[in-house]
């Protein structure tokens, strides 16, 4: 047992393991970069970095062929910690290495945490418009909204993945069951009249029968969106209400009345509500004269606090985000002349990389200055 432990310890404290892990991480990053052409940044992060093993599809099977980011990062962490426990001695000549490695540990842990907790949303605002929520870039939900009370909406949101799975949903807030009947992760939604020869629609009520849905390949490109569509049957106590088509390509919610209440149903991006709201006062967009190259774009917004008091004005522009209540708002893009798109990020560990990197840089400087000092002394003696 002790012999086995000693061998394991020797492996984990060895520099050889460090070099192998560094080489593996280079291969991983390189492969992931090439794969971005197909998978997009988000897909690559899931496949290569936020995973223990990288799977490759071979025929029917998913085979693990390479260690993933968590595995390599984790082993590097163990390697580093055990080297410091068993191999390194304290001493002023090693201070640089200690500081740099401490920073590296912090960086690896920080990236792990931010990979787990960071959330990204987008907020699209027209001039004069106000919103108290941001929308997910990728995730969608099927929302069933009880709008009977004009002052208050009651929302039941079913994630897209549940529809994809075909799981039947029953909720105490709903007088009917929701039965998914079909789902396309990406689709093109057109008026039936524009698509001659389209197959008959499974939808029986609402807008669905007028619409033709063509399934599309899922896109990972950063400048393209997926438009998921689903057919859902709503079944009440006295039989079916009919099959509805819902899709993010449809736009406005569909309305109906049932069980004495008014309902709206809609497929929409997942929303992240916040206790305050934001009004876009003015969006500005300059280009260089005689070109169509963007010179700058900025959004003047009003931040309306939850207590109803008059908020403050903030100018968000390139390289100048607004940080508020743990959320950060960045000028990301725009549509036309009067609509801005803000990127909204929640990342509680955003400060960690700053500290970690400062510590690594400091450690490297100290270490190399010590080396350089030794080299110069040797030269002077020679």
């Amino acid at each position: 047992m002790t012999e086995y432990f000693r061998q394991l310890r020797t492996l984990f404290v060895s520099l050889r393991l460090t070099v192998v892990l560094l080489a593996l991480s280079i291969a991983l990053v390189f492969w992931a970069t090439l794969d971005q052409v197909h998978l997009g940044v988000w897909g690559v992060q899931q496949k290569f970095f936020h995973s223990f093993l990288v799977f490759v599809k071979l025929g029917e099977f998913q085979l693990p062929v390479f260690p993933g980011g968590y595995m390599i990062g984790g082993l590097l962490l163990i390697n580093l910690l055990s080297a410091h426990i068993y191999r390194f001695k304290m001493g002023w000549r090693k201070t640089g290495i200690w500081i740099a490695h401490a920073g590296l540990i912090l960086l690896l842990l920080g990236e792990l945490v931010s990979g787990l907790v960071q959330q990204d949303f987008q907020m699209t605002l027209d001039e004069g418009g106000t919103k108290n929520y941001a929308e997910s870039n990728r995730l969608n939900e099927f929302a069933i909204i009880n709008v009977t009370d004009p002052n208050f909406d009651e929302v039941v949101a079913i994630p897209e993945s549940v529809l994809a799975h075909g799981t039947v949903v029953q909720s105490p807030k709903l007088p009917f069951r929701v039965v998914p009947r079909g789902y396309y992760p990406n689709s093109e939604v057109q008026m039936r009249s524009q698509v001659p020869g389209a197959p008959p629609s499974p939808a029986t009520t609402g807008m669905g029968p007028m619409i033709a849905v063509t399934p599309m390949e899922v896109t990972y490109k950063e400048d393209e969106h997926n438009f998921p569509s689903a057919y859902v049957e709503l079944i009440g106590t006295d039989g079916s209400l009919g099959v509805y088509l819902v899709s993010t390509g449809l736009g406005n919610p569909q309305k109906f009345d049932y069980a004495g209440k008014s309902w709206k149903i809609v497929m929409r991006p997942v929303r992240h509500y916040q206790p305050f709201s934001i009004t876009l006062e003015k969006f500005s967009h300059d280009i260089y004269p005689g070109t169509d190259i963007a010179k700058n774009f900025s959004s003047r917004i009003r931040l309306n606090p939850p207590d109803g008091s008059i908020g403050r004005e903030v100018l968000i522009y390139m390289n100048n985000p607004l940080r508020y209540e743990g959320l950060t708002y960045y000028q990301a893009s725009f549509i036309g002349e009067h609509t801005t798109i803000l990127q909204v990020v929640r990342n509680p560990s955003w400060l960690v990389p700053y500290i970690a990197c400062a510590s690594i840089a400091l450690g490297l400087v100290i270490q190399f200055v010590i080396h350089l000092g030794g080299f110069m002394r040797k030269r002077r003696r020679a």
Partner: protein
Amino acid sequence: MSRRMPFFVVLIAALCAASGLFVRPPGETEAVAAFGRLPILSEGRFKPLDSLARSTLLVIQGKQLVVTHDKVTGDRVELTPDQWLLDVFFVPERADAYQVFVVDNPDLLALIGQTDDTVAIHYDTKAKQMLALFGVLDTRRRRFSFDEIVPHIADIEAQEKLAEPVDPQTRTHFQSAVVQLYGNLSHYVRLRRAFVPEGSTDFLGELLTLQKNLAEGIDAVRAKEAGKPHDEAKAAAIIDEGQKFVAMAESTDLLAIPPDGDETDPNTWHNVGHALLESFGKGEINPAVLAYAGMGYAWSQNQQASFEHVVGLYASSLNTHFEKQVKKARIETTFNAAEPFYAGMWIYVTAFLFAALSWFKWTEAARRSAFGLVVLAWVIATVGILTRMWLEGRPPVTNLYSSALFIGWGSVALCLVLEALFRNAIGTAAAGLIGFATLIIAHHLALAGDTLEMMRAVLDSNFWLGTHVVVVATGYASTFLAGVLALIYIVLGVFTRRLDKATADALARMVYGIVCFATLFSFVGTVLGGIWADQSWGRFWGWDPKENGALIIVIWNALILHARWGGMVKQRGLMCLAVFGNIVTSWSWFGTNMLGIGLHSYGFTEAAFWWLSAFIALQLAFIALANLPLEKWRSFKA
């Protein structure tokens, strides 16, 4: 000989380098040069017409000097960029016959009616035939005139329409070539219509007539609009001119006409058509438009004296409100003519040859000459980079082109430090190689267009450009330097007896020191990039290809250091790892751009892919060479 040699070598090189400042090429008279200095607003910045001419020629024909053949006599004619631009503007029927459009793609050649026989060049002497065989001379004609291409314009347009919707990364060679040619042709046509409307033979006369009839004509149009009695002929003439000006305003993006009166805001510059349309409101024709029309008349009639006079008048009138722009344009024109990076390129080559010479003959004299030459080239490059920074008002690195300049500059600076420490000509040899290579790369990157282009809004932050980009570029520069030093070690060791133990140890120390330096700079640079990203987009790390490339460099340098500390590699292993660093760095520098995705995907060139592959293959060959058993090396023999 030996004591004074370095001094004379550097002096001759300096004189050659400075010649561009004092010697004007034939044909470039003072008036033509003055025309080249006139500022215009194009692609978002003020630049001299000279820069417009040069960058346009680089894009459409791959070089600045126009060499063409007379239509009738077949004689060779050389034109400076400014002369060419003057003909394009004012004597388009002459310019249309200049062979300036590069067509290399065989399918595209067929599309414009050329066959192997029509483009083949036959040399009459044996020597020239040999040179052609080895690719020194062209074996076929590459450049064609607008006149030659125009009969096939409908086919080109149709093919371009087919190719244009295809994603640039997935286009075939033919598709890229046809899109490029079509773009070049329309760019050329836009230039041709910038100052003179299509088909006009005497534009100045036309404008003078208009000037005379303007007031009456405007009255006639107003009366017509109000439904009152009017002179129909006069109104029709004005409306006719107006339509012509609208067409002109729409067909160019060259803002050449400064605002009338006391306006000094650069955003109020207009193109000629637009400025002419304003005449109807103001009741008089913008004097700058008249000045350009006057230059055009004088140039087309070959009236040198009056051309010079009008250019001079217009230039001095600009001075009252746009002195800053005039001054900048003048300095940029001087900078263009001096071609500091072109001169630097040749001095670096010469320096490398002297350094190599010093290992075999005239040791100290040749070494000092080499060192002097590198210092000279580096000073020239420094002045060049500083001038660019001043012109642009930006930190040194703003695009791929300037990154090549800066990486070369930084590497050479480190080489100078090494040479000052070690005095064995290895630093200068490395400087010569890197300086030459980076300037060649920069030269080819300039073929993409204006190298002082405006920054996109996302990147518009002098602070981050000045810190992140500069530090990362220094990291690239030092990683390359370590690789080049390792190459010198391998070449000296395998092919010569020159690599003794002292030199080998010195090289190993240099490589190790530079790798330490590279680790620090590439790490700090990458982190600064992360901080910029966090400030701008809300993520410290986005796995963008360029970020990944930089990360790989950091990890690779860390790997070299750990492998050496762990005793896993000795001297030769260290050298192999350092050479592989060249591959890693070149991929990060150019390979990531070829993926065409992410925030950093600017400046993609197709030919670059071939060169990158060749470079990587070469580095692998050197690594293989280094792994030959020591008995096969010429050095290290007892």
